[in-house]
């Protein structure tokens, strides 16, 4: 018998029990989209979210610096006039393209701002899902010092 496999099974059983007894609430058990975060390109990410091609839109406004001195901390902000239900931030040349994904329930403004890491100069894309379709705005951010490698 493979002891590692036993451990994995046991761990799964424990997590399952925690979820069923309410130790982990429904929201916390909400699936982290591994497939999307493993995606290497914009197409992979869009596929993982079950969408087709994203359409360029002027209604998505994307704030990012032209030049990021420190790739480890690049402030990005997304806002839109569309009725957004989801927002995602994609850095094209990072080892995994998707940086973050946000779900906006009804009543939440279509706005988010956060900070991401960039390995090198790259296009950064803001994806917005509205009415079941993905819209995109992009901007090239030049990185003088990478934030991913050692």
């Amino acid at each position: 018998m493979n002891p590692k496999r036993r451990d994995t099974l046991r761990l799964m059983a424990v997590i399952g029990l925690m979820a069923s007894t309410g130790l982990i609430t429904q929201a916390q058990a909400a699936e982290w989209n591994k497939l999307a975060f493993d995606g290497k390109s914009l197409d992979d990410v869009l596929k993982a979210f079950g969408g087709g091609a994203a359409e360029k839109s002027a209604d998505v406004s994307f704030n990012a610096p032209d030049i990021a001195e420190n790739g480890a901390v690049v402030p990005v902000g997304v806002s839109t006039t569309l009725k957004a239900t989801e927002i995602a931030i994609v850095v094209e040349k990072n080892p995994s393209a998707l940086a973050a994904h946000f779900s906006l329930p009804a009543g939440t403004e279509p706005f988010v701002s956060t900070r991401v890491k960039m390995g090198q100069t790259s296009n950064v894309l803001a994806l917005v899902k509205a009415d079941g379709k993905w819209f995109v705005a992009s901007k090239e951010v030049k990185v003088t010092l990478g934030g991913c490698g050692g």
Partner: protein
Amino acid sequence: MGDPMRIRATENGGVTEVKILMKHDMESGQRKDATGKVIPAWHINTVVAKVKDKEVFTAQFGPAVSKDPFLNFKFKGAAKGDKLSVTWVDNRADTRTDEVAIA
């Protein structure tokens, strides 16, 4: 159990603006230590913000979110004094919840 988050929530004209600073290393899984071994990825996976048990915002983070993640968002429908609770879970199933009253 991680360190406390810093959360600021202010209501103005029906819209509540929330700013969160989480304390987390967000190790990317790309870096190597002095001996050349890859440092395994360790980062926050999900963040959920709730008011009165209703979700107002959820985020999924990959390893490309900066160390000590910052998050800024706005939502409608809460009043001053309501409690906003924020919970994160990382990929080692560590979790932390903090609560603030909306000002």
